């Protein structure tokens, strides 16, 4: 199995069309063509660090500010989840904790591991690492749950003096953190996982298919 780069070609990451290397823009879908983006990992790390920077205040500042006749209370992400658990909703508390703590932390760890794996090699097979990347890309959006909860609560619970809910500053930081880590996951080019593999000698019997090889002899030159 050979990659487009090994064959001296460039493949479009949007639509999969194969082009000669001098082509700059995919003629079929208009996507910008680049065999391997320069500074690919730096981009990943930049978004990663931004996401982490925003994740800290997201956990320190209050997410929700609830004002009732009797009292006013501020809840951080974790504080709010713990309160839910104490009020007899451990299931929902678990969903919140999973979406706001579990998923973001797992994302930071996995993206960092993928980026380090490209640079320093990894014990995991490329297929497994690519699976991890797909999972991270898929579940990243689900972290937005808590931001949506805050939005719904503060739009809905507006009963004058009786009870009113306002969003706290953490909601902004949390949303930014989710968005930045989504960018980090998107900036990670999963083709790099397989490039590192190809640099090592391929295992015998790795290459059962014929078509790409003979198909490509003519167009390159």
């Amino acid at each position, binding site marked *: 199995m050979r*990659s487009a780069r090994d064959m001296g070609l460039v493949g479009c990451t949007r639509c999969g069309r194969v082009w000669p290397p001098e082509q700059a823009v995919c003629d*079929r879908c208009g996507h910008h063509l680049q065999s391997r983006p320069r500074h690919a990992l730096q981009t990943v790390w930049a978004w990663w660090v931004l996401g982490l920077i925003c994740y800290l205040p997201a956990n320190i500042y209050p997410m929700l500010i609830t004002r009732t006749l009797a009292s006013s209370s501020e809840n951080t992400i974790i504080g709010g989840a713990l309160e839910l658990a104490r009020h007899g909703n451990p299931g929902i508390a678990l969903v919140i904790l999973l979406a706001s703590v579990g998923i973001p932390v797992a994302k930071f760890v996995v993206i960092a591991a993928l980026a380090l794996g490209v640079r320093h090699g990894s014990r995991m097979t490329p297929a497994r690492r690519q699976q991890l990347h797909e999972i991270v890309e898929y579940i990243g959006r689900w972290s937005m749950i808590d931001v949506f909860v805050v*939005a719904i609560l503060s739009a*809905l619970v507006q009963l004058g003096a009786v009870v009113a809910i306002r*969003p706290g500053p953490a909601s902004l930081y949390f949303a930014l953190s989710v968005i930045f880590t989504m960018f980090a996951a998107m900036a990670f080019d999963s083709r790099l996982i397989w490039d590192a593999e190809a640099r090592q000698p391929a295992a015998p019997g790795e290459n059962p298919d014929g078509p790409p090889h003979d198909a490509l002899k003519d167009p390159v030159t």
Partner: protein
Amino acid sequence: MPDSPARQIRSDPLADLIACPRCDAVQRVADPGPGERVLCLRCDHVLAAPRQSAGKQIIGVSLAVLILAITATTLPFLRISRAGLAHDSSILDAALAFSASPLLMGLSLLLAALIVFIPALRAALSIYVLWPLVRDRAPWPFAATAFRLSEALRPWSMAEVFAIGCAVALIKVTDLARVEFGLAFWIFACLVILVPVQDGLTCRHSVWKSLDPRATRGAGA
């Protein structure tokens, strides 16, 4: 572009190849029949999965999504009441809940986009791209750009995440006040089911292939 386009239209040997967008492995994809799936030989990424008369179905589902999105935004979504006071909120209200403070205004617009505008826009783009293809006509101008935009926006369409957020918010609110569901709530529930259906039906490979001006089109040239 190296050659004159006129000469290349007939003979672009690269047109039948596909570089896996995930791992860059170049392979020849035979035209799969409806209901068949073509997986990347190296990383098992789904390269093509055409379905019988998918185009018409996608157009139908997209129209439904578009209509539901418009109605769901404007009608009352949820209503709470406590101690004689009541307040109802539409989805737009939820998205705009952050607009109270200028810092959170941007977040507000972003949420509105994630919840309704992006899903609706993607539905509209799908219709624009597929309408002429279903009727065996040449694609409309900028169809490729439209489809590329729709693909790029896919991770940012978060209607289903918002739905889970609703469920969590409702459980939180039931302690504070009584909640009633508005018409928009049920419309939005349908929307959440239809958006993934729209994505599941779309075979990207088939769409790109029919948008490719250089590939020989099935019926025509």
